[in-house]
């Protein structure tokens, strides 16, 4: 293992500063559960961590095939980390396909734990192996531990009266137990969670716990391993923590926004990967006054949210790229109606159905420009799973204050990935409520488009308010009265005033922070989920003695007011993105800066090494 120190601690466990473990198996093998449990126990233990789940779009792809491989990578450390790790140090391979699909990501010398029971002819053939890799010497560069996980699990479950076929399904718990021993994890949290989770299925519960203990004990007693490892808790800032995924943090951020605005939320959406968990989670919190609706389609979901906002509540919808395509017309309506609306886009690989379960950042242009006409809309992006909370809250704030739809961009990696979250003190969250208009605003008249001179927001008068009845629509309207109006000058004015309203938000957001100094030869400009890996890449370049600055954009529209100045303070600018260069196009167009693009759309995050290498190459030029 690459990252360990040589001093063995007194209890015989060898200390490591960090390790990257990848659990891989068939999509029916329970690898996501295994990874989740290991993550949770590591979080409770106090390590810093970042996770990277990766699974096929098919619910059950053909068993034993490469297409059906599901994996979960977790990076745990005794210090602050921001990426799920470039290269796994340890691979748990539950079958030949899992081995084959993941071997290429490992460095030589990596440790591989294989379930030998699954290395039979039929599975080898399905994975496309002509010979058994455990026997043909092709794995000589790795440290291989061959363990008959299935048969030991079956044996451990035998006394419980579990049928062998059912017992076999607990083999992921065996792997979890073994890895827990290897990395000196406490067993109690996993046992307690399992007891609760499977409380109603006693046999499954008992089989899983038996398999878990068998795995743990196997590590302790088998002579395969001379000693376990340990990774000390990371010195994280003091406070109360939990582990959180991006989708859950988004949900909480929306609820917090609704609470701090003192407005009930109506959340309408259509199931779509990877955004559905937001619907699932919000549906569980109706006691916060959250009305959730599973609409008949993406368009209806947007329409319902718009109707709710008109009625004086917080309308929210979430989806992924294909859904944003469908909602485009409704978003234009919301822009024209000038009503608050939050749209979360959990980006995934496109175009078309694309890669439903893989991550990508390729909807930036869609968020900025994906509507007909001059249809400006504020756009925000979250940078890490826990940051989704703050980003969602901010999206609500802007939507309400400026009476505008706001698009929050997250992505598949943020949505399903997790990290420890220092719980916010919710009592310190700002009040973001906005007053409804209840009185005429022009003598005895109510003018629905008479704007606040500062924010350019129009009044929000909700049905039920006597005397303020008004009709609004998608047709162009006269500023002030809101009456249908086709006058050329009025339309020109309205397009410009809608643009000015969104542009004006720049004075209401924090300036772009730069991690580095003016005059650093290179600035790396990132947005969204690449934050962690860019941060890691920049740190690496700095340890090699280079002066590299990093700035990360939360606000994509409008940009922070100082972005132009930040860009021009650095001779070279690098923009890494999981698309083919969308932000770099925007900054080049907006600021005439010769930004260089680093792009990839492989459906997985960048490696810190790629960032580092590109930085070094640019500095060499």
């Amino acid at each position, binding site marked *: 293992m690459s990252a360990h120190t040589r001093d063995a601690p007194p209890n015989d466990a060898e200390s490591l500063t960090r390790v990257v473990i990848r659990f891989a198996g068939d999509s029916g093998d329970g690898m996501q559960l295994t990874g989740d449990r290991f993550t*949770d126990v590591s*979080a409770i233990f*106090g390590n810093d961590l970042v996770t990277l789940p990766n699974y096929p779009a098919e619910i059950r792809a053909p068993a034993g095939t490469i297409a059906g491989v599901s994996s979960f990578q977790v990076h745990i450390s005794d210090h602050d980390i921001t990426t799920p790790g470039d290269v796994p140090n340890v691979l748990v391979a539950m079958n030949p396909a899992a081995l084959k699909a993941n071997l290429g990501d490992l460095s030589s010398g990596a440790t591989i734990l294989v379930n030998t029971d699954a290395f039979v002819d039929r599975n080898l053939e399905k994975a496309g192996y002509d010979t058994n890799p455990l026997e043909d010497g092709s794995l000589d560069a790795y440290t291989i531990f061959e363990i008959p996980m299935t048969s030991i699990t079956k044996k451990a479950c035998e006394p419980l009266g579990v049928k062998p076929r059912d017992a076999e399904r607990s083999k992921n718990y065996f792997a979890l137990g073994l890895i827990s021993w290897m990395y000196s994890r406490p067993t109690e*949290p996993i046992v307690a969670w399992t007891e609760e989770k499977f409380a109603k299925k006693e046999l499954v519960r008992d089989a899983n716990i038996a398999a878990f203990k068998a795995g743990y004990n196997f590590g302790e007693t088998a002579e395969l391993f001379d000693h376990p490892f340990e990774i000390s808790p990371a010195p*994280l*800032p*003091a*406070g*109360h923590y*939990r*582990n959180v995924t991006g989708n859950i943090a988004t949900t*909480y951020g929306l*609820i*917090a926004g609704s*609470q701090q605005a003192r407005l009930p939320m*109506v959340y*309408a959406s259509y199931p779509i990967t990877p955004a559905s968990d937001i619907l699932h989670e919000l549906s569980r*919190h*109706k*006691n*916060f*006054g959250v*009305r959730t*609706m599973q*609409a*008949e389609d993406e*368009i*209806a*979901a*947007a*329409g319902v*949210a*718009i*109707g*709710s906002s*008109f*009625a*004086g*509540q917080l309308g929210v919808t979430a989806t992924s790229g294909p859904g944003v395509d469908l909602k485009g*017309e*409704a978003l*234009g*309506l919301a822009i024209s*109606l000038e009503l608050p609306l939050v749209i979360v886009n959990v980006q995934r690989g496109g175009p078309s159905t694309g890669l439903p379960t893989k991550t990508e950042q390729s909807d930036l242009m869609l968020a900025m420009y994906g509507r007909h006409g001059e249809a400006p809309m504020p756009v925000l992006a979250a940078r890490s799973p826990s940051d989704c909370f703050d980003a969602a809250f901010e999206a609500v704030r802007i939507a309400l204050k400026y009476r505008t739809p706001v698009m929050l961009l997250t992505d598949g990696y943020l949505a399903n990935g997790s990290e420890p979250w220092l*719980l916010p003190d*919710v*009592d310190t969250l700002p009040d973001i409520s906005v007053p409804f208009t209840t009185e005429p605003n022009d003598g005895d008249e109510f003018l629905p488009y008479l704007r606040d001179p500062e924010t350019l927001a129009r009044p929000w008068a909700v*049905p*039920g*308010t*006597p005397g303020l*009845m*008004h*009709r*609004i*629509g*998608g*047709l162009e309207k006269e500023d002030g009265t809101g*009456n*249908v109006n086709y006058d050329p000058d009025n339309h020109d004015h309205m397009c410009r005033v809608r643009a000015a309203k969104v542009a004006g938000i720049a004075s209401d957001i924090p300036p772009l922070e730069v991690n580095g100094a003016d005059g650093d030869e290179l600035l790396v400009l990132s947005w969204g989920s690449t934050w962690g890996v860019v941060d890691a890449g920049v740190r690496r370049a700095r340890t090699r003695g280079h002066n590299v600055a990093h700035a990360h954009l939360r606000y994509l529209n409008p940009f922070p007011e100082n972005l132009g100045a930040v860009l021009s303070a650095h001779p070279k600018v690098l923009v890494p993105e999981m698309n083919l260069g969308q932000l770099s196009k925007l900054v080049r167009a907006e600021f005439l800066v010769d930004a260089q693009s680093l792009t990839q759309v492989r459906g997985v995050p960048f490696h810190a090494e790629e960032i580092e290498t590109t930085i070094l190459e640019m500095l060499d030029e």
Partner: protein
Amino acid sequence: MSDDSTGSVKFTRKDFQSDQEVRWCPGCGDYSVLTAVQLLLPDLDVAPENTVFISGIGCSSRFPYYMNTYGIHSIHGRAPAVATGVAIARPDLDVWVITGDGDALSIGGNHLIHTLRRNVNLTIILFNNQIYGLTKGQYSPTSEVGKVTKSSPLGSVDFPFNPLSVALGAEASFVARTHDMDRNHMTEMFRRAHDHRGAAFVEVYQNCNVFNDGAFAEITSRDSRESMLIELRHGEPVRFGENDSLCVVLNEYGEASVAKADEVEASRILVHDEKRRDPSVAFSLSRLAEHPTQPTPIGVFRAVERLVYDDELERQLAQASAERGPGNLAELVGSGATWEVSG
């Protein structure tokens, strides 16, 4: 608005008229629907500020601009969705949907059927003129096969929808039909629809005098109504024509047809039951006339009670609050496994 002797506020037609000039073509059937609604609303005991009209796109969808209520002229076909948002957010409001045959049955067909099956508390008025008016005269999803229009110079080869059959097939709990030549009947249907709890669907045969003039003339003109319109009345035998000489009977398969009253036994004449849970008889009646050139039933085809979507949503919210208390944000973010890091 006026105060009567009891002190309660009475609204008048004027209270529901906006200051916008009505801009439909002179002679359009839409005018009479607008008048019927504006005359009815003061009678319904709801205030203008508690009334919302949501429309889609099309000639009829300009309707909200002419109502002094809250309203949205939304996007093509999506009015039921937008109205659903208003209705679920604010069960205290009266929410109306104004739509047309193209808006509701073509581009917005999906929203219409799902809104009906959910039984959202909305009053939906579909202006059916069997033509696209706003886009100047293409055939619509209710136009008859063979119709010659700008987009079908050799005659349309599209088989049309029967709006009532669609609504009944979509599990609508209230289904009615009326026409723009009879204000009293329209008013009665709108009143019944408004009073129904759940999604109420009213089809209005509406004349487009520019692009499809006279589409319903054979049944709605004053002198043909008696023999061509079959007015359904709950609990009464379905009879029509001069001296009630005609009637509707069901055959052994439940198919409705017209018969001469003196040629069938009185017991065979269909007695209309709008509360029948099984929609098949209402469905048969909706298809009695293949075209509005044959004797056509009007009135309330179906009015049954079933769970209302917005009520159920409210109930779940109340239940969640009763069981778990009002939401506590600090508890929510700190739920699940947590741990303490000391400085």
